């Protein structure tokens, strides 16, 4: 078989195939439920219900989506330039560490200290990604492996901090940092609703990234580098410089996830702050086709599946890992579907 490009794909092809990919994911979900000895329709219903069936559920989904928007944006920005940042997890933790460190200093008023915490977090995340990118541009070292390996190093560093210098003496032996003061927590958007300003910040970030990507020279250069680095260089774009700028933005965005989780939700640093938000960000970004506004939608979708599966698992007894399988499957189905909107399979 071989693939033949399609000049003008029909609307049916353009929208039908991605829809088919989603439908196929639902079929896989039903099969997994059957294997687990549960009723497929009831299982799916419980997932939807657990994700959006009540005010509590919906708020839980929004909270879970917040870090995923940040990491999804981080991945989307980087992948657009074909910079394979698989290290959003490490950058998230760098942001979380710095948030806690600055939070422990008395800088005066919270209105001053919170933005300083956020900016310092951005700087830390940017720095963490800068290393692998300099290794890439200077020595040609593949950034996939270096960013992946740094995730493990960073997690060990967090472990060291929360068991050592930052350990909370009042933590009953649990390895976690001293909690941030109350006034250094991100306030709730609406009093009484369990949703903090981190979510609003994530939406602002998505719009900002969209503006940068579609309305600025840098956005144009990022796309040019991603489409064809050689041609971009020939056209006079300083490719390495664009890659470094992309890295700073991407690392900073991922670090905001750490800032928002610490200052908005948890209040302290621990090595289970992120259940893989950095890796899940890859799924979020790919399902959104690297579109920053789309990232908001797919982050909500992905968060919904996680939250829904958690609550379904308690009720129906299907292991909660069904969520991880479904997301991986939807990623693979979706990239295949997108490819088939542009190419036709020819057998010969």
């Amino acid at each position, binding site marked *: *078989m*071989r*693939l*033949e490009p399609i000049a003008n794909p029909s609307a049916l092809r353009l929208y039908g195939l991605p829809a088919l990919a989603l439908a196929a994911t639902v079929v896989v979900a039903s099969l*997994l439920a059957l*294997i*687990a000895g549960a009723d497929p329709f009831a299982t799916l219903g419980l997932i939807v219900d657990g994700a959006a069936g009540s005010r509590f559920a919906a708020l839980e989904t929004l909270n879970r989506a917040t870090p995923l928007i940040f990491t999804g944006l981080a991945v989307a920005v980087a992948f657009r330039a074909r910079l*394979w940042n*698989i290290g959003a997890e490490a950058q998230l933790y760098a942001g979380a560490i710095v948030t806690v460190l600055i939070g422990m200093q008395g800088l005066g008023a919270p209105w001053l200290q919170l933005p300083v915490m956020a900016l310092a977090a951005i700087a830390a995340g940017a720095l963490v990604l800068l290393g692998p990118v300099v*290794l890439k541009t200077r*020595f*040609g*070292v*593949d950034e*996939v*492996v*270096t960013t*992946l*390996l*740094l*995730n*493990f*190093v960073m997690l*060990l*560093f967090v*472990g*060291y901090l929360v*068991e*050592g210098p930052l350990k909370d003496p009042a933590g009953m032996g649990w390895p976690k940092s001293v909690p941030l003061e109350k006034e250094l927590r991100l306030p709730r958007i609406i009093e009484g609703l369990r949703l903090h300003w981190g979510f609003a910040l994530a939406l602002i970030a998505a719009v900002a990234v969209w503006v940068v990507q579609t309305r600025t020279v840098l956005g144009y250069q990022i796309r040019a580098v991603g489409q064809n680095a050689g041609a971009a260089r020939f056209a006079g774009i300083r490719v390495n410089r664009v890659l470094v700028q992309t890295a700073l933005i991407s690392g900073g965005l991922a670090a905001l996830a750490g800032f928002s989780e610490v200052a908005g939700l948890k209040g302290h640093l621990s090595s289970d702050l992120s259940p893989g938000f950095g*890796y899940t960000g*890859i*799924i979020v970004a*790919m399902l959104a086709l690297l579109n920053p506004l789309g990232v908001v939608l797919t982050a909500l979708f992905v968060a919904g599946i996680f939250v829904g599966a958690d609550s379904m698992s308690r009720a129906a*007894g299907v*292991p*909660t*890992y*069904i969520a*991880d*399988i479904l*997301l*991986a*499957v939807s*990623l*693979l189905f979706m*990239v*295949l579907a997108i*490819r088939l909107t542009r190419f036709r399979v020819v057998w010969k």
Partner: protein
Amino acid sequence: MSLIWDILISASFWAAAIRIASPLIFATIGELICERAGVLNLGIEGIMVIGAFAGWFAVYLGLPLWLGVGVAFISGMAFGLLHSLLTVPFGLSQHVVGLGITMLATATAAFTYRLALPEVTSPPRIEPFQPWNLPGLSDIPFLGEALFRQTSLTYAAFVVAALVALVLYRTPLGLALRSVGENPAAAAAQGLSVTGLRMGAVIVGSGLMAVGGAFLTLSAFSSFFFDMVNGRGWICIALVVFGAWQPGKAVLGALLFAAFDALQVRLQQTPMGAVLPYQLFLAMPYLLSILALVVMSRRAEVPQALMVPYNKGER
């Protein structure tokens, strides 16, 4: 310094290094086969997880150890088939598909484990491979204890690496595999099936990665834990680069790496370990891998068509 020297001259240290190297050798050779044929397989981390689980689960259900290894191999081949279908004929991004396969395989292992054993709190154990003292050889002073009192799965790792090197450099199949990784158009012009060879390489390579994972449960730890692979797959990708895509050098790299790993474990128990945080020792393998990549980057002989999809009839 004498501290390190004392460790280096003990036979048990070298025996540990070879033990630690074994899963890395299986997986690194598996990745090397994929990459020599032109396909980067980032599914390696997840495939090692599914291999560790499938091998352990088969033995837990009562199969003999070697059939457990076989089950692991087949589970790896299954995910390799999926990976190769998406990346070879459909030419999808090897980065995205590889990471997707890692997530899928990891989640599948976790899902199945929870489904089969919903209530367990401490992971059940199996009876793992026992050391096999090679007759005669294992009685040689020092060398006997260091090299010849390993489990049969360790000996198998070295045999597999030698066989792969033999096939790669001494057979028409090996020549064909290398040529689709260097210049697929020229290989196709000679009548070779680029698609078939690449898919075959990814499927067999993935099988070996899974056996590497199974070493952890069937020979090293005798239980299955969710985080047990812990980045070993990514380290193997670095080892392939370090070994300049050659099986012999890759095995040496794995041994060198494992020696450092065995060393850091032992240093933790010395006065040094009382001063320095243990996390620093645990971070050494990852930092070392990054360093190895930097050192080798200048003179790495990358297969020319690595990560370049081939579509018949193009250009």
